[in-house]
């Protein structure tokens, strides 16, 4: 038998205290009686009739010492090792996300968690099996089920924290699959709890043991970074960033703003506890470059103290409008920023050379290859079939979609529309009860925005929301903007690059200066680079192309290093953290139950004596 908390034996020092209490005179009720003779005889007779005179005298003392010993034993948490019947499966999930690099635990949260996991390996019974999963942006099986403790230790040592957010759902789903039909399985999660909500596990009843790490939240973090043209001065670029103080104390820091590595501006900022502080930098930019911001403070988590973004100067968008004569649409397109508009009555070629093609209420003889904004146009490649619908009512729209930013469909009436079934490649962003009225999606590598009704059969062109929608659509469909957005990826997400020429190989230069070759799938015409676990600026060379892209954390959940005592699964389910491993053969519950029984017996006996 071993003990998980042998320090509890120090409580044995209480036993002499109990005996001391018995040595002390008990406070008794004083009574004057005619004679104590009968009482003396009574005591003499009862003592003579009891076989264990001394024992009977000290029954209460013995009971109390027994109770104390049982309580100490229960506190010391004894367990039997190596006597389990049948092997147990333990799935260890080690959180390797950015927040685990926080230095509030020595040396880091990740190392602490790894140490705890190694202890769990040590406590494993010989016939137990263990799986090691590393949960970062992706879940990696570091070690499949094995009894080999050496292999498990190696697997845990091979884990390392990345700059990525946690996707704990994937890890839990994988673990759930691994322990399926195994009633004696347990999932041990070593994490700081900096994860997104996991409602889908609310009712799954996972046998999860949460081992929390983390002492405090002392962190300033950059959670958003974006760059746009300054709306008030087109010659300038506006950089939007927000810094959050996750600690409960006031913090001070300087925020540096650099353009291509050169310091442009420094702001000295003071952050109230738990304050989110949006900051804007304005700068003239002569050429494409990399904009970076950095907090100079020394806090527990360094990875979120900087962020970088590729800033491309806006280029004119070449838009071809194919319409029988919709002037409202043409006018709306003209007022959209950076639009170079051409108008045509028909489309007979693939419209090469245009960035965006707008099809209004007609079917072209040749479908364009460029991104398409289509009004009341149906393509058999897009939809399986369609029908006409009279006066559909707009009941819902996705205001969060980039296309519908600042767009409102109140007071928009539609007379006729095409009723289609939402295809798999698109998502509906404006809905009528019977059909989707506006769809947006990507078919192959072509972005398509489809509006299911004729503009002239609706009141929409007369509403202020219409030109805003057109401007949003041009920006969303602009390939240059798409490329620019793709040049900034969150750590752990793959970087994708459309190849304009056939290349066989590519090289990536990492932020730390190492260069690694990258495989290219020439058949797909796309390069996908997945090793973005470190934040910073990456340089990719593929043939004649050289592309710079930035990898950032920019995740509020990860930057919030507040230690979590429990994990919430939806509204009602939660798992509380445990500091010590729950050993399978722990017997403290039985001992505690025994102690309770002794306590009750002692209580009864005491009252029986004196009642």
């Amino acid at each position, binding site marked *: 038998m071993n003990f998980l908390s042998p320090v509890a034996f120090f409580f044995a020092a209480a036993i002499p205290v109990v005996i001391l209490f018995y040595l002390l005179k008990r406070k008794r009720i004083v*009574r*004057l*009686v*005619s004679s104590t*003779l009968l009482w003396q005889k*009574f005591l003499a007779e009862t003592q003579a009739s009891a076989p264990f005179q001394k024992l009977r005298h000290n029954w209460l003392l013995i009971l109390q010492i027994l109770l104390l010993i049982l309580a100490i034993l229960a506190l010391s948490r004894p367990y039997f090792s190596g006597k389990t019947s049948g092997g147990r499966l333990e799935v260890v999930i080690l959180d390797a996300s950015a927040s685990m690099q926080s230095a509030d635990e020595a040396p880091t949260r990740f190392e602490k968690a790894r140490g705890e996991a190694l202890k769990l390996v040590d406590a494993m019974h010989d016939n137990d099996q263990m799986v090691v999963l590393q949960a970062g942006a992706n879940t990696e099986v570091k070690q499949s089920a094995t009894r080999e403790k050496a292999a498990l230790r190696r697997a845990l040592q091979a884990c390392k924290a990345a700059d990525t957010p946690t996707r704990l759902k994937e890890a839990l789903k994988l673990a759930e699959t691994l322990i399926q039909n195994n009633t004696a399985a347990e999932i041990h999660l070593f994490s700081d709890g900096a994860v997104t909500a996991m409602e889908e596990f609310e009712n799954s009843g996972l046998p999860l043991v949460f081992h929390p790490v983390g002492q405090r939240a002392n962190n300033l973090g950059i959670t958003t970074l974006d760059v746009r043209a300054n709306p008030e001065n087109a010659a300038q670029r506006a950089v939007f960033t927000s810094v959050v103080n996750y600690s409960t104390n006031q913090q001070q820091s300087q925020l540096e703003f650099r353009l291509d590595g050169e310091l442009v501006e420094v702001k000295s900022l003071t952050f109230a506890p738990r304050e989110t502080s949006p900051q804007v930098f304005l700068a003239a930019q002569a050429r494409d470059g990399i904009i970076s911001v950095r907090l100079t403070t020394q806090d527990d988590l360094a990875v979120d103290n900087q962020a970088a973004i590729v800033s491309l100067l806006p280029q004119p968008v070449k838009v071809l409008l194919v319409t029988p004569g919709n002037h409202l649409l043409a006018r709306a397109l003209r007022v959209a920023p950076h639009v170079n508009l051409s108008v045509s009555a028909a489309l007979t070629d693939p419209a090469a050379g245009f960035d965006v093609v707008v099809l209004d209420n007609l079917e072209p003889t040749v479908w364009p290859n460029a991104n398409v904004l289509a009004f009341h146009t149906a393509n058999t490649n897009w939809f399986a079939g369609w029908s006409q619908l009279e006066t559909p009512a707009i009941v819902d729209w996705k205001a969060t979609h980039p296309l519908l930013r600042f767009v409102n469909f109140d007071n928009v009436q539609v007379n006729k529309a095409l009723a289609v079934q939402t295809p798999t490649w698109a998502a509906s962003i404006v809905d009528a009860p019977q059909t989707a009225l506006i769809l947006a999606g990507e078919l192959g590598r072509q972005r398509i925005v489809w509006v299911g009704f004729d503009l002239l059969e609706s009141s929409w062109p007369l509403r202020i929301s219409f030109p805003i929608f057109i401007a949003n659509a041009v920006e969303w469909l602009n390939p240059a903007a798409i490329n620019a957005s793709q040049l900034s990826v969150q750590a752990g997400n793959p970087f994708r690059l459309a190849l304009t020429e056939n290349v066989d190989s590519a090289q990536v230069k990492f932020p730390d200066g190492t260069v690694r070759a990258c495989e290219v799938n020439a058949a797909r015409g796309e390069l996908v680079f997945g090793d973005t676990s470190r934040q910073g600026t990456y340089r990719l060379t593929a043939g004649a192309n050289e592309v710079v892209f930035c990898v950032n954390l920019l995740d509020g959940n990860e930057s919030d290093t507040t230690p979590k005592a429990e994990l919430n699964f939806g509204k009602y389910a939660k798992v509380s953290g445990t500091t010590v491993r729950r050993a399978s053969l722990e017997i403290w519950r039985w001992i505690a139950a025994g102690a309770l029984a002794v306590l009750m017996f002692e209580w009864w006996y005491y009252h029986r004596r*004196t009642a």
Partner: protein
Amino acid sequence: MSLLTADLLRRLEQFQLLAARRAKSSAKGERRSRARGQSVEFADYRNYVPGDDFRYLDWNLYGRLERLFLKLYEEERELPVTVFLDASESMNFGEPRKFDFARQAAAAVGYVALCGFDRVTVTAFPEALGEGAVRGALRSVRGRKSAIQFFRDLSQVTAQGTANLNEALRRGALAARQAGVAVVLSDFLDPAGYEAGLTALVGRGFQVSAVQILAPEEVNPGVFGDLRLVDAETGHEQEVTFGRYRLSIYQQTVGNFCQKLREFCQSRGINFFTATSDTRLEQLLLKQLREAEVWG
């Protein structure tokens, strides 16, 4: 304070103490004795010796035998009745008090004796300061007309001090000029015991009746818990943890104590009675003592 009710006194008047032995008192009384004297009861003959009173010669016998014989008659003497009254501190306990009960019993015994022209002595022990006159007046009371004074004196006796039962009885036995009837009224709760005292009384020739008077609280104590009991007489302290579940064991102990006393008394021809202080007096006097033929 009236010790006995008028009704009880009237009923007690009908009784007379029954003495199994002949009276040995030197004073004349109404009890038969071994002494020869003047009465109507013929006892024996003896030879005439010069100097004898001619009035007691049996002339009829002289006529037949021509020898002189003297007729002897039984002398009637008084019966000394001694009541040993335990007036120690322990008798003050109980509800009603044991001492009150004991005094009433003493008064009843005394009254029966006085009505029978016997000499009554009430010996209250231990000695008490300031009660010398009262206690002295309770010695050698005789005659029915003394009953009122006897009751008055008896009611002035108080219970105090530490008793030594053996010593008191032994002294009483030695001090008595003639043995007679002895009635011991006590709780017999003396750490030194009672055997020596009772044996001394029996040895002196007393016809002894022992009445043990206990308080109801002594038989059925109503206080439980962790107790420190202080002996009212000796000051001895006894710690005891007492619960209801041990009540029957305690009562068994009391029963054993009484039984032992009873067996001792029976083995020495002592009449033994036990009563708690809440027993009706008539129950003891008119039933138990009568059935045991202490009086009749």
